[in-house]
């Protein structure tokens, strides 16, 4: 399994190669980040078409601006920073605010190994999580995603969101409390097995 440092180094190398015009390096980087960026942007803009546009703009900006990456942050933080900036720009252009999301877009395809009972349980859990996340503020939802899904360190999140590291910790603490409260209210107390 590749370590975080190993992955960071290999991504930084891809970015350096892309900066010197190597298209294959950019393509590899694109494959690594396309879905992550798209889903992150979708969290922010709540519209698949806008999310695709923003993802495209973000990845083209990565290609054009690869030489500007200075290794002061992770490659992921740098790319998410571009994506976030472009997503917020898109929301401004569209006259919308970074707002609560209707998360009906979740995939609903059962695993072939699931029994009908598993399927029912999975759907219940997903619905509960969907509702609980939708009840959170956009800032809470975003920070939980960056911590638990993108697995970014707190200082990188602080740099991405332009807030102090202590504010990141505080925000995550309250976001987790809120999510827990919503899940409990929705009756989803048992762990997913």
């Amino acid at each position, binding site marked *: 399994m590749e370590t975080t440092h190993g992955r960071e180094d290999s991504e930084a190398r891809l970015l350096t190669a892309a900066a010197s015009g190597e298209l294959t390096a950019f393509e590899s980087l694109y494959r690594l980040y396309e879905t992550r960026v798209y889903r992150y942007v979708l969290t922010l803009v709540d519209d698949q078409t806008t*999310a695709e546009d923003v993802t495209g703009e973000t990845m083209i900006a990565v290609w054009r601006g690869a030489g500007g990456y200075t290794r002061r942050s992770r490659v992921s933080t740098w790319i998410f920073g571009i994506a976030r900036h472009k997503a917020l720009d898109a929301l401004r252009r569209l006259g919308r605010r970074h707002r609560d999301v209707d998360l009906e877009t979740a995939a609903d395809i059962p695993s072939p190994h699931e029994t009908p009972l598993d399927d029912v349980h999975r759907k219940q859990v997903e619905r509960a999580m969907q509702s609980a996340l939708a009840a959170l503020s956009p800032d809470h939802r975003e920070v939980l995603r960056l911590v638990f899904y993108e697995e970014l360190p707190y200082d990188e999140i602080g740099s991405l969101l332009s807030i102090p590291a202590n504010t990141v910790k505080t925000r*995550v603490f309250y976001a987790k409390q809120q999510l827990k409260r919503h899940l409990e209210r929705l009756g989803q107390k048992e762990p997913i097995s």
Partner: protein
Amino acid sequence: MNEPETLPADIHPEATLLPWYATGTLQEQEQRQVARHLEICETCRRELEELTHMKNQLAAWYGSQPESSPRLAQSVLARAADEASAGRPTDTIRESRLQRFDRWIGGLFVPRWVPTLAVTMIVGQLALLLWLTAPTPPSEEISTRSIGSPTSTFVVMFEEQASESQIRDVLRAIRGRIVDGPTSDDAYVIEAAGGSPSLAARTLKLLRARSDVIVKAEIYTP
């Protein structure tokens, strides 16, 4: 989002690091600090369990989100290929001088010892500054100093117009110092290096030779 800006007072500092402990993204030192705390704190162990469970739920949820359409990849990669074959503007392929300078400066701060070196240099410069600006002992004042032994003693009357620097020159020439005075007739007692009669005579001769400064000089006899 209406949330307090600070954490509740009863929250352990380590508890705020638990989300990153759960994802394995803490620095080594913090990782050890949290691990040690968890050994003794049941509350934080329960919190970690909850966070790990939540992490799995969120990962499953976000992992089930839709993917972008294949058209997006085709479109982006085609644009990049077009730009590559057309030759991108040099300011996008190559770093600007400013960016190269920025990268160079940034590189200087990568090694871990750089902050220590910086602090050492600052402290060193501060010490140098203090040393340079510290008040030095006034060199123009006549001060008591040891001239060793044996010594000879003289009674001297200075010219009224003699300046301090002239008097100092005389004292330096005979390696002497003023030990008493002025008396009622404005005489001073001077002690000079060398206790033998011949040295005392030579010193007296030197004193008398400075008639511009000294009106009268005699060997002191108590």
